[in-house]
């Protein structure tokens, strides 16, 4: 089979899985829906592997294939096919998305068992994976936008999965609105490109763009900035990031799926996919690099102070995506996508570990309440620690190689980029610190009552309440289920976390500088047109970067150890000493308040103005009221003529007849 045939199969399995679980939920017993959905994604992953093998069989210059199913639309000069593009980049994305999603499905089978909306959950999950695969396989901007919007809709459904929980639905709406802002940006960007090149097909656009647009011309920069709006909204970069921490309201597997491995990487994928455009508009690429750097340091600083376990990981996701955006913006495409892959492994692992801990706490997510789970949850402890090591970039883990490659490329560009690279190293230090802040505060120290209970063999299921607000809840559909599930007691959860832990450690071997550059060589056919193709940091620089990164990781971990383990009094002392800084961090740099003041409240005021002045005075009073008055005046005239007097009617008739006769007499003479 040709690679594109495999590509269609990759798309078909999740779609079929979604239909089966969505329509058959009534007849699927127990965990049946979960197994079917997991199998669908597993088959999709197998098809992606088939796609990889079929693609590798071909010579290097023929590794970009377009498979067309039918013409999607062809009207008014705009033609778009329902076509998929199979090249190394999309194959890589398919492998990462379907592979990690498969493990997350497996995890969810156990994790969501007691939830009343079990089958609905898996239908959503499959729909999400289908949308994401459509996004990465699309061969033109139209289909990309379709997948893009599907992903936004699926994330809305999943974030507000517990739809009776007010905080969850609010978070879902927030995510959806911000994603739609991104969609609009992407549509405008695609339109600007279409206006210039007359096509929406990737290859045609990339081919014609250099002829049509001059380098850094206004239109191409505008188009790239609009595409960036879309990418930043999906990838939670400043200032469109506020939805991501709130999206932690969804079930933990959703956080692992959407906010670690797949959806948030869509923006990085988009920038990498549109690299010929960004190389044509270096100004836009610089904006992207600067915003990526700002996000990575901002998110790392907030993660230092956040007390919600999942939010700490969410901010670390933002921070790591910032690295990827920086990477693909400075033309380090291989490095950025390498980090995308390793991050998908260790971040999904961290979320799964966090889910296990939260389950053991009976749904409580606050770090302040946790502690001492090491003995009661050894498997979770070790896998979480591995994930944290990879996140921190500890030497020889996967994150070590991928993150430092990005920074080495950034420093190699010189000029302004050196500043960005240095900021990246500072953030790496912070990353190591907050990663081990989680490990130390959750797993070490004195065991909390829940951990003690678990050591005694009893699982604490918590009192059913919203952890954010404390509101009472039942365990029916639309709320979390009655029981919690931890990795130590559920083999599917272990089966999901084990391979991820392994990959988080060893995935780095795909990209050891100077030794095994397998990953970059694989992506070469996609990026060989890049004008920075030959620009590489020297091996010495790369190893110096690795040493600096490794040092940052070790120092960060050591500081965290001193801070949380050896000298716990230091914590409150620092907090008091830097009370102002702490307040800013705990309030997430007041971004929510800023948006509230700048966007939400003026919007609400505008809405009120519309309702009171425009709607009730103008529309209701003038437009509607005026029409009603006019009709009423006309009808009262007609009514007065209908007086019921037969002789009056006869008189009118004769009058009319006489008038007609007179008229014809005058005309005829």
């Amino acid at each position, binding site marked *: 089979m040709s690679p594109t045939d495999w590509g269609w199969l990759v798309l078909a399995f999740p779609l079929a899985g979604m239909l089966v679980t969505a329509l058959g939920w009534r007849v699927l017993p127990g965990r049946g829906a979960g197994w079917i959905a997991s199998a669908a994604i597993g088959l999709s992953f197998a098809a992606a592997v088939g796609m990889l093998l079929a693609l590798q069989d071909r010579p290097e210059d023929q590794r970009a294939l377009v498979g067309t199913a039918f013409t999607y639309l062809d009207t008014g000069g705009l033609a778009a096919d329902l076509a998929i593009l199979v090249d190394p980049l999309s194959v890589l994305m398919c492998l990462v998305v379907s592979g990690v999603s498969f493990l997350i499905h497996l995890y969810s089978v156990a994790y969501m068992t007691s939830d009343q909306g079990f089958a609905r959950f898996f239908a959503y999950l499959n729909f999400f994976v289908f949308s994401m695969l459509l996004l990465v396989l699309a061969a033109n901007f139209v289909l990309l936008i379709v997948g893009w919007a599907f992903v936004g809709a699926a994330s809305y459904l999943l974030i507000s999965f517990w739809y009776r929980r007010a905080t969850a639905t609010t978070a879902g709406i927030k995510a959806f609105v911000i994603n739609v802002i991104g969609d609009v940006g992407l549509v405008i960007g695609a339109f600007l490109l279409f206006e210039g090149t007359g096509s929406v097909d990737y290859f045609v656009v990339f081919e014609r763009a250099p002829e049509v647009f001059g380098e850094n011309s206004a239109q191409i920069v505008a188009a790239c900035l609009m595409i960036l709006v879309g990418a930043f909204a999906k990838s939670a970069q400043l200032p469109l990031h506020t939805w991501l921490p709130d999206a932690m309201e969804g079930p933990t597997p959703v956080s692992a799926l959407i906010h670690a491995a797949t959806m948030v990487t869509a923006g990085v994928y988009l920038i990498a996919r549109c690299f010929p455009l960004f190389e044509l508009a270096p100004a836009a690429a610089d904006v992207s690099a600067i915003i990526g750097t700002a996000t990575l340091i901002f998110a790392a600083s907030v993660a230092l102070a956040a007390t919600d376990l999942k939010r700490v990981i969410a901010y670390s996701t933002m921070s790591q995506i910032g690295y990827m955006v920086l990477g693909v913006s400075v033309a380090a495409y291989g490095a950025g996508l390498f980090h995308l892959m390793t991050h998908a492994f260790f971040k999904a692992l961290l979320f799964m570990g966090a889910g296990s801990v939260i389950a053991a706490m009976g749904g409580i997510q606050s770090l302040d309440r946790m502690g001492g789970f090491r003995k009661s949850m050894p498997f979770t402890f070790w896998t979480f620690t591995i994930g944290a090591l990879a996140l921190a970039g500890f030497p020889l883990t996967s994150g070590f190689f991928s993150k430092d490659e990005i920074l080495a490329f950034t420093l190699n560009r010189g000029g302004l980029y050196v500043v960005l690279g240095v900021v990246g190293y500072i953030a790496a230090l912070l990353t190591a610190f907050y990663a081990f802040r989680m490990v130390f505060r959750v797993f070490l120290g004195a065991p909390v009552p829940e951990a003690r209970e678990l050591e005694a063999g009893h699982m604490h299921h918590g009192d059913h309440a919203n952890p954010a607000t404390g509101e009472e809840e039942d365990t029916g559909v639309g709320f979390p289920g009655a029981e919690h599930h931890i990795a130590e007691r559920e083999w599917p959860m272990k089966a999901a976390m084990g391979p991820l832990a392994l990959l988080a450690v060893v995935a780095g071997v795909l990209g050891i500088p100077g030794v095994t550059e397998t990953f970059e060589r694989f992506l070469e056919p996609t990026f060989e047109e890049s004008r920075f193709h030959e620009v590489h940091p020297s091996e010495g620089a790369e190893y110096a970067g690795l040493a600096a990164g490794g040092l940052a990781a070790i120092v960060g971990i050591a500081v965290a150890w001193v801070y949380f383990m050896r000298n716990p009094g230091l914590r409150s002392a620092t907090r008091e000493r830097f009370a102002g800084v702490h307040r800013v961090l705990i309030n997430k740099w007041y971004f929510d308040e800023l948006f509230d003041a700048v966007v939400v409240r003026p919007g609400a005021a505008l809405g009120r103005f519309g309702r009171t002045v425009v709607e009730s005075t103008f529309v209701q009073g003038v437009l509607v009221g005026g029409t009603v008055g006019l009709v009423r005046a006309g009808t009262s005239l007609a009514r007065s003529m209908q007086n019921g007097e037969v002789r009056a009617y006869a*008189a009118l008739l004769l009058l009319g007849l006489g008038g007609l006769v007179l008229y014809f007499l005058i005309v005829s003479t």
Partner: protein
Amino acid sequence: MSTSWFVVLSAFIFCIGAAGVMSRRSPLVILLCLELMLNAGNLALIAFSRMLGNQDGQVFALMVMVVAACEVVIGLGIIVGMFRRRLPIDVDEMSELRG
């Protein structure tokens, strides 16, 4: 004999009928006057038919007669109905269909 005499006579009869419809209040008389107007029309039709040597007008006059007969049947039926219910036999009193 010139056609204009017939037409003038027809116009006279029509005006008499119309004046009757307008001025009388008894439905019975109004019906009679309506009949006058219809027959004035018939007279004009037949006069023109004769002038043109064409039979169409005469056929049409027959049709008008049929319609007039039907109308009288219905009109008289209504008047008998009103009489039975002891309603006033006066068209000005019957204005319930006003808007």
